[in-house]
């Protein structure tokens, strides 16, 4: 009986060791690294925490008034009702008709717009048919009577429940999407 107890304790110790070994391999923690000197960056990484700035983030907004390099034109129409009315009446597509690429516009439309507005622009996207988002109008809506300028203004600033897409699409892409939306509108009104 005495010897049995001894063997039992041995088994229990070995089992305990095995369990603790296995439990070290947990998926909620990253794995061990061997000599991580070249794995970890020396400079700041995007979105990293940092004490250097008051809000504790590495990622900062560009200084006010700064513009990106390249042929950048600021969008000078305001995000107001007057701005919208002005854009609706006056703004036109700066891209040459020859450079308008409906395939690319359609692809971008499918990623960013079709999920609510529907791939035909009838306001019946997947989120609408699943009743997640409501009240998405058709592009052929009479009361809204969308124009090139109003589409761009809405895409740039958002309108009502729709958010701004200025950070997901660059200027050229936005105009390609606007051209595609106008095509959808024309198709709907046929």
């Amino acid at each position, binding site marked *: 009986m005495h010897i049995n107890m001894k063997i039992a304790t041995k088994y229990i110790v070995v089992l305990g060791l095995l369990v603790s070994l296995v439990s070290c391999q947990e*998926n*909620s*923690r*990253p*794995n*061990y*690294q*061997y000599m*991580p000197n*070249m*794995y*970890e*960056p*020396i400079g700041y990484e*995007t*979105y990293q*925490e940092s004490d250097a700035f008051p*809000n*504790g*983030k590495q990622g900062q907004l560009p200084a006010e008034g700064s513009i990106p390099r390249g042929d950048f034109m600021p969008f000078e129409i305001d995000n107001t*009702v007057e701005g919208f009315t002005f854009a609706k009446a006056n703004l036109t597509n700066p891209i040459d008709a020859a450079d308008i690429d409906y395939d690319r516009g359609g692809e971008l439309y*499918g*990623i*960013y717009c079709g*999920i609510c507005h529907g791939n035909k622009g009838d*306001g019946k996207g*997947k*989120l609408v048919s*699943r*009743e*997640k*988002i*409501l*009240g*998405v*109008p058709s592009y052929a809506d*009479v*009361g*809204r009577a969308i124009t090139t300028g109003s589409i761009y203004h809405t895409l740039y600033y*958002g309108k*009502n*429940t*729709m*958010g*701004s*897409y200025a*950070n*997901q*699409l*660059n200027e050229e892409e936005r105009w390609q999407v606007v051209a595609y939306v106008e095509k959808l509108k024309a198709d709907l009104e046929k």
Partner: protein
Amino acid sequence: MKKSYQSLEDNPTYNMKQVIYCSLTSKIFSLCLVLLLSFSTSLIAQDGDPVNGKSLFNSNCAACHKLDKPMTGPALRNVEARLADEQGLDRAWISAWIRNSASVIKSGDAYANKLLAEWNNVPMTPFPQLSDQNISDILAYTAAPKPEPVVVEGATDGGAVQTSGISNDLILGALALLFALLAMALFLVNKTLNRFAEAKGIEVEAENKRTPLWKAFVQNQFLVLVTAVVFLLASGYFVYGFFMQVGVDQGYEPVQPIHYSHRIHAGDNGIDCKYCHSSARVSKTSGIPSLNVCMNCHKSISEVSEDTFAEGMSEHSVDYNAEIQKLYDAVGWDGTGYTGESHPVKWIRIHNLPDFAYFNHSQHVEVGGIECQTCHGPVEEMEIMYQHAPLTMGWCINCHRETNVKVKDNEYYTKIHEELSKKYGVEELTVAQMGGLECGKCHY
């Protein structure tokens, strides 16, 4: 919820109206009723079809109005009765406002101008296409009483979950008890048998003294050698395996500050990966979407549907609505506008290449046209995001050896592609054959 509309549809007044339309003989009767209707607002509220009203409301009004919560415009529950009681405005005013609010404002109507100022001077979209019947349908829908929150159903759901948990525990407990009883019974039987044997004077035979097993094993040199070789090979295998997985985070599944379900967003709702990870199209990193991208939809989705909520509670024990609330707290959204008090969400990075390896998302996603799932696995089925691929160099190289590059319509390189094809004697070039294995492509 549906039930309440059906009961309204079966409303006797509604049926009566149909009867009135059918009966041609009693013209005076109907004339009287029309007069009555035009003077009594409470009766007007019931002459529309709330079911049709709901679909009209959802397709036209719901972009800016909710029934019980202010959005871009005011909440519209009982709007007709409210306007009649508080402002003394009738349906004619409402119809004029809906069809063209701008002209009502221009006419100098005091309440219309007050309303515009109250809602940040954002004019309401005109709806000239809505007929009188449409408007009365919509108003009938808004006049429907607020459905009681389904508390009973939720409680039974929670109860069911708990009972199922208890029943599992119960079964396990019962099994453990059973085994304990069996063990005790065996022990007791053994004891009594021994006692019987002792009482009857039968000697239990003592075991013969033999060489113990381990001594016999040590004496057999061949067996010792074989065991040593097997042991060395096995330990070599495991040690190699252990060292090879150091630094590999395959399966890494951290707990994120907000429980974001890729399954619901990318799977059930079919939102494109690039909707949120838009920089994967154009830059080196796929990027963690900033919170304004979340708010593109969650401005109007503040609660998940009842089914989704129940599913989250029972299958993942997550309160999805509380998670959406966490987003609102982080972005500083009070339900109608931004408070300006925001704080960053500390997402935990999962996929992380070592600093000495270069990887470019746009090169793979946009130029190569590779599906996100090729490397990231079935993200649209993941309730909690985890690292699908090992992200080791061997894994990269293997894909570069196997994948053919789409060289069609790439006129600039046509000549060099043709020469390479001739050199390797193949129809289609793999990434490796185009230099995808050169050290400097990824390490510099």
